[in-house]
């Protein structure tokens, strides 16, 4: 299929005005947060006015065990520079054991991503409880810093 590019406006002509300064690059991190712990932890971080980089986009999931490996691949495809899966501490899962399966699944997947040529620092999992607002803050800050050092992710992406 070929697009008639002639008919499309040249993007630069339309959008770039001479005075618009280039935005500094900020990583985009997709965070899957379990409803019962990490999402509440993120809420607490907000309520307590803890500062953290605006790089994370949280997606609430019922349990960290809900996160399918395909979610992670799709996030990278659609432009994520990093992916975080976060849930309750082992032993505290609302569904008793969901996060034990999460732990096995993503330990394995992180290694597979590395084998495929991804930097494993771009994929992390963390246990963050509802009372751990500061841990949420630190996790996001740390991950943002790590990914800033790595630069934008180009691997597996299908969007610019």
């Amino acid at each position: 299929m070929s697009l008639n590019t002639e008919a499309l406006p040249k993007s630069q002509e339309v959008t770039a005005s001479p005075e618009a300064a280039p935005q500094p690059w900020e990583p985009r991190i997709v965070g899957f947060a379990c409803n019962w712990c990490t999402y509440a932890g993120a809420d607490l971080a907000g309520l307590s006015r803890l500062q953290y980089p605006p790089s994370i986009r949280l997606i609430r999931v019922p349990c960290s065990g809900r996160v399918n490996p395909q979610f992670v691949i799709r996030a990278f495809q659609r432009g994520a520079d990093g992916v975080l899966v976060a849930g309750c501490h082992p032993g505290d899962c609302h569904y008793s054991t969901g996060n034990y399966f999460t732990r096995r699944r993503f330990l394995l997947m992180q290694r597979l991503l590395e084998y495929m040529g991804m930097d494993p620092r771009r994929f992390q999992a963390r246990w963050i409880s509802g009372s751990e607002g500061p841990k949420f803050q630190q996790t996001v800050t740390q991950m943002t810093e790590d990914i800033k050092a790595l630069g934008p992710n180009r691997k597996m992406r299908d969007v610019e």
Partner: protein
Amino acid sequence: MITEKIRAAAKELLEKGEVETVIGWERGTFWYNSTPVFISKPEQADRLVFDDFCANNLAKYLLDYRNADGKIAVFVKGCDARAITRLIQDNQVKREKVYLIGIPCTGMKEAPKTVSSQDVAGLPLLAKCQSCATPNPVIYDILLGDPVPQKEVGNRFAGVEALEAKGADEKYEHWGKLFSECIRCYACRNVCPACNCRECAFDANGLNWLGKQNNLQENQMFNMTRAMHVAGRCIECGECERVCPMGLPLMDINRKIIKDLNELFGSYDAGLNLEDRPPLGQYKLDDPEKFM
């Protein structure tokens, strides 16, 4: 002669009415391909053969007989038997609905490069047979012939280790090149005894898991997901790699996962033992805690 024995066994089972269908191999169009055959009458037993080209794993065909009234007999080599264990563990096949005729296997041969000479002895073994760790069926009702000695297979993870040692960009390029060649024919999935979902994620296009585009990104999605889906259940039969028309080294991915599972959660080989549960379907309280 093993072919004699399998014909006699099939004939007897069908005559006595113990099974309604026998799944085996017959002579294919060429002397170097023996293809699966499904027979239901005793007089058809003479079509059965067992030679150097019966590579097809027959276990997967049992899925087509899930609702059969009677029993189905199937011939199983070492790898096929592990596939049966896999299907029983996944509740796809009931043990009492299958009659397993085990055949100790000395390995299957590659198709010849030229078809003029019929020099079977000079043909190399299939890659999957060169590294086969279980030539003798692990599960069967009767065994035809004597168990064959287990050959020395060396370190089956050598290929994986070599890839692991490469740099990130080098790895990405390596896989990128290969995945861009994938034509998404899904042969690797269709043949796989661990891929027995009633509706595969890749066919469920309403869910939009996988675009129809044949580009690198979608192919990465397909290949990585397939690997994760069979993680802990892959029986290392090597069928996926054998059937791939583009020659993708899929065992390099499957074995990577097997190696990691063994390192992370203790030694496990899928399909050897009906009692063992697959590693991603269970957990231990003291699993490695790398994420914190």
